[in-house]
């Protein structure tokens, strides 16, 4: 389970709505607790795909490193990433799968006509052939 507090969900939703019709993206910081992951903070990033921002996003390695460093400073981990699918369902595309890393939680949410909708979380399996859905548990706060 990926445990997400309401205030963080609101921030993710707001990021997706603000950047609509472009895709938004950011890092999920948190900690592992047994089989669960608890999200304790976010780091929004600017989408680097200026050539095709409506259906693509990318985060540069220096930004990934920055998120790692920030997590370390806060005593937590960089546990995954969120991004929006403007006017598309909250499940990973083939392009998402081809570019995914194992282990990270990939939170994807639909933004339909500028309004944030369904949010789901996914993890790539170890042979890279498919994603497994990871349930999201909504919590009061982390």
């Amino acid at each position, binding site marked *: 389970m990926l445990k997400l507090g309401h205030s963080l969900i609101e921030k993710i939703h707001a990021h997706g709505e603000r950047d609509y019709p472009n*895709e938004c*993206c950011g890092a999920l910081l948190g900690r592992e607790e047994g089989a669960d992951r608890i999200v304790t903070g976010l780091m929004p990033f600017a989408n680097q795909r200026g050539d095709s921002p409506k259906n693509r*996003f990318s*985060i540069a390695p220096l930004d990934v490193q920055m998120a790692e460093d920030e997590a370390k400073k806060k005593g937590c981990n960089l546990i995954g990433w969120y991004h929006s699918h403007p006017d598309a369902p909250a499940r990973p*595309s083939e392009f998402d799968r081809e*570019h995914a890393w194992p*282990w990270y939680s*990939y939170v994807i949410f639909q933004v339909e006509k500028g309004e944030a909708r369904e949010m789901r979380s996914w993890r790539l399996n170890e042979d890279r052939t498919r994603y497994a859905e990871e349930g999201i548990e909504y919590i009061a706060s982390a």
Partner: protein
Amino acid sequence: MAVKVVIPTPLRQFTAKQESVDLEAKTVGEALNSLTSRYADLRKHLYSEDGRLRSFVNVYVNDEDIRFLQKEKTALTQGDTISIVPSIAGGAGR
């Protein structure tokens, strides 16, 4: 040359949780080869089927991107640190 390869968090499950791996190599290609023969499950995450490094896998030698050096032919010297750093990409559709 004795060098160190720094493993990013998402790949540490394949290196027995080690944050870095020490090995002997003369080039970056050799180092990655040695790494992926020691930890075979890493291979498909670093390389595509045609044997090339995946586009979202970034490799640095002491903070210098190997794309701006001699790529996998980049020569190593004793004590070099090779870092594998993810970039994150995706998007809806296709």
